[in-house]
């Protein structure tokens, strides 16, 4: 199937609408919580509609492109929606919508709400920009914006812990961003301005040393964002410090943006054949495999719930990197689908963690005994997501792991099946005891604030997004192969990359 280029003005809308939300809706609705919630929900929903509207065309083999403006005499800002970008775009916008609706409940009694909502909306804009970037400079612009301008969200609580986490975040992210910048400058110097298409921009004639330098700059740069061990240091601190709805998108999408960057580098900048020739991917495999296991082991020991989930994110992103590094068609499908599946699984877990914090005052795993009786819906959603994370069929986590497993056999590396299963097993070890304790253990003796039998369920505005995320997890598993689902996009992307 040949891809067909179509000029279109739709892709820029995906980032212009949320920007509009931040710079028009938020200032206009300073005084009214209700109108702000409605206005921002509409902008977010419109973004989802734009992202979804592009999918049928993309599945049809169209590639939508837009030339925005000339940034330098030689380089355009250029948007291009291919299967990979469309997949990331729809995942991001949907999760953002859920987190935004959830925010209206969660942030109700927080301070500096205008700032929070403005930057929250902006960060969606930058993420959509990253998803639909058509060349490296455009990618860099959005990637940097979204790395830097999320700082106010990380430190939103303004507590000493949040400030410390913010400093750690910004230093890690800036070092990563600088390496990405260097790599992009070097790529531009060697290859000129070229679109991110599946042929790859570089070739062997540019010198093996140069290519290796570029590759490792890219990998380490994006690896910081994608939380590859040992570059993951900011993740476990930033997540507990940030407000829960932001942790949701941070874990679900923003960390994945690093993995998305790695995919762009592997499949669009270098191309599969050049990388096999360079022979660097086996080292990436080692790093990714180590990340999966190491982070999962650390997760087991965490008592702080959000911290445990953060380590789980690191481990899961290891899967994505592993899938990419195997350089096989099935493995790539698994990696791509896992980005989207993980977003909703981890999204559910973080949204539930936020409900536990806000409505039961629970921050720690050890405080969760018997909580399911008081928050049945919350814990129901939590349990579904936890099971999906472990990879229980027919939930979504299973689908991605199935493809990853197939991919490993496909490229003749069955040894990584041990990593795949080990990671899943460890996920069971760090998630199932939570579910078990919540459902089957005796509650902690009479709560100091509320009587033990009182229901603590949150209002609908917060509960609904959590349940919706869990439902999406279910659907992504049950209806995985329906057309328009992430799997179909991932198959298309993989087909283009390997044929």
């Amino acid at each position, binding site marked *: 199937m040949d891809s067909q280029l179509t000029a279109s003005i739709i892709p820029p809308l995906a980032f212009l609408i949320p920007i509009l939300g931040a710079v028009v809706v938020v200032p206009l609705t300073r005084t009214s919580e209700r109108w702000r919630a409605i206005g921002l929900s509409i902008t977010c929903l419109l973004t989802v509609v734009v992202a979804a509207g592009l999918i049928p065309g993309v599945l049809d083999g169209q590639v939508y492109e837009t030339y925005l403006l000339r*940034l330098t005499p030689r380089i355009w800002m250029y948007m291009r929606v291919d299967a990979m970008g469309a997949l990331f775009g729809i995942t991001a916008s949907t999760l953002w919508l859920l987190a935004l609706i959830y925010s209206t409940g969660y942030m109700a009694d927080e301070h500096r709400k205008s700032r929070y909502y403005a930057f929250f909306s902006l960060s969606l804009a930058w993420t959509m920009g990253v998803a639909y970037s058509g060349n490296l400079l455009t990618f860099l612009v959005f990637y940097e914006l979204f790395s830097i301008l999320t700082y106010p969200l990380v430190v939103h609580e303004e507590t000493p812990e949040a400030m410390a986490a913010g400093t750690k975040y*910004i230093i890690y992210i800036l070092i990563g961003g600088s390496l990405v910048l260097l790599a992009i400058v*070097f790529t531009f110097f060697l290859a000129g301005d070229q679109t991110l298409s599946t042929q790859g921009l570089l070739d062997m004639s540019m010198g093996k040393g140069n290519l290796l330098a570029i590759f490792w700059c890219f990998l380490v740069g994006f690896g910081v964002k994608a939380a590859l061990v040992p570059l993951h240091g900011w993740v476990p601190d930033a997540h507990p410090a940030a407000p829960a709805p932001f942790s949701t998108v941070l874990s679900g999408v923003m960390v994945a943006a690093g993995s998305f960057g790695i995919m762009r580098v592997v499949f669009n900048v270098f191309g599969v054949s050049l990388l096999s020739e360079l022979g660097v991917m086996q080292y990436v495999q080692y790093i990714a495999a180590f990340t999966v296991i190491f982070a999962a082991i650390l997760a087991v020991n965490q008592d702080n719930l959000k911290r445990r989930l953060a380590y789980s994110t690191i481990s899961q992103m290891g899967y994505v990197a592993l899938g990419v590094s195997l350089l096989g068609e099935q493995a790539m499908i698994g990696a791509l689908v896992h980005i989207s599946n993980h977003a909703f699984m981890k999204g559910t877990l973080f949204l539930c963690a936020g409900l536990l914090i806000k409505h039961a005052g629970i921050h720690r795993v050890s405080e969760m005994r018997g909580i399911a009786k008081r928050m049945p819906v919350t814990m129901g959603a939590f349990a579904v997501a936890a099971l999906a994370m472990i990879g229980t069929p027919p939930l979504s986590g299973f689908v991605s792991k199935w493809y990853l497993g197939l991919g490993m056999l496909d490229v003749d590396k069955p040894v990584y099946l041990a990593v795949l299963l080990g990671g899943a097993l460890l996920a069971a070890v760090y998630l199932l005891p939570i579910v078990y304790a919540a459902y089957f253990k005796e509650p902690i003796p009479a709560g100091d604030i509320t009587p033990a039998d009182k229901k603590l369920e949150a209002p609908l505005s917060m509960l609904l997004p959590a349940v919706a995320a869990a439902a999406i997890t279910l659907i992504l598993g049950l209806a995985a192969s329906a057309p328009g689902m992430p799997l179909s996009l991932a198959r298309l992307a993989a087909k283009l990359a390997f044929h």
Partner: protein
Amino acid sequence: MVSWPHWIIVAIIMPMAGAVLTPIVSRKNDKAAPVWALFIMSLTSLAALFLIVRVAQEGPFSYLVGGWARPYGIELHFDEFSASIGIICLIGWLALLFSYHYVAESIPKPRIPYYYTLVLLNLTGMIGFVMTGDLFNLYVFMEILSLSAYALVAVSGERVAEMAAFKYLVMGAVSSLIILFSIGLLYAVTGSLNMADISTRLAGIESRLPVMLALAGMAMALMVKAAIFPLHIWLPDAHAIAPSPVSAILSGLVVKTGVFGLLRVYQIFYGAGTYELAGLNTTLIWLGAISIIMGAFFAIFQEDIKMMLAYSTISNVGYIVMGLGLASQYGIIGATVHIFNHALIKATLFLGAGALMYKTGYRTLTDLRGVGKAMPLTSMAMSIGAISIVGIPPTAGFLCKWYIALGAFQAGQPAFGFALVFGALFIFIYYIRMVNSFYFQPPTHPEILEVGEAPVSMLFPVLLLAALCLVMGILGRIPLSFIEPAVTRMLGG
């Protein structure tokens, strides 16, 4: 209008005459001085606009003062680099506007007219400096701008200010002397003071030693003016102590005259063609890299916000000098455009800091905590400035960083691209401190939450400059493609 040949001389005479007349105009009425200075600068800006339009249409052109043919008469030469007159007029105009309220409070009343005289003289010096085609003339204009700058540092009359001005004066005077000596050497060897003429004559000079000595002397002295590490020691005190609008002019423009002088020296020697400049290039690259790192390193430890901004200037001039030293097309384009962009950014920051100090009376990061709530617009403008100066895309600082880094690859020196990018990282650390203090830390002085925004005459320049920081990032191709032919011509011989 545009093709009227005398605009170039108007652009010099106008502010010079305006400066001299300021005390007379404001003899009866104190308020007249700022209005008069603004009026003069508006007319000068108009002349500058015509000149820039003309150079964009026709390419470089010359003006022979009094009709005396070169190389005997004085030649004013306007090329693409001279278009920096635009930024001089813009920053000068905005700084004058900003001064209206600011200076009324911080300078003894009888001195106020002389303050405006000095600012206008300083701007005259810079305008002449970028347009002259004659080496001795270059020296004269440099002295005009330097002497007025020393006085402007001391203008508040505080003891610290006098000390800072004296330190600046000593360093500046020595460097001026060396420049004069070098010009003398070149005159002795070539028998000409006209830059284009010297360039042609140098090619045939047999005895290279005096020429190289002159080159070394000029380069070193101009590095003092540009505050390249380790010749920077005069800068932080002078820039931090001066009244904020003056700091904006000093940091945004005056320091750049050193770099601009280097650019002219390069033009002369590239034009001559036969000189080996690798030594000078290497020196500039290394000193540039060291300046970036050291400037950032010192800035991290500063509590005083203007001190921090002053050290940040050293880092940024480091970028520019590194770009020049790389001697590749991308590097030089990046450097020249950064002269322009950094002026915008640093003026935003210094004027913003001035507005904060004017309203709150505090100047350290600790004292200024929480000011983001009290003065949201000024703080936002300064945050935009901070993001631009670090080079986050798509702000004004980014394209220069991109070009200079590309220049490093083009020159076969990727290690310096690395130094550049990681120097920027270092710079971010202290700007993050500033942003944290504005927005995310509880106020040290709770009463700070009560102050409002500064008056419009101060707020408008800050906001306009901040907007330009964004616009020049997005429309960065305009200065880049404007300057490209000049750089090609310069490198091509």
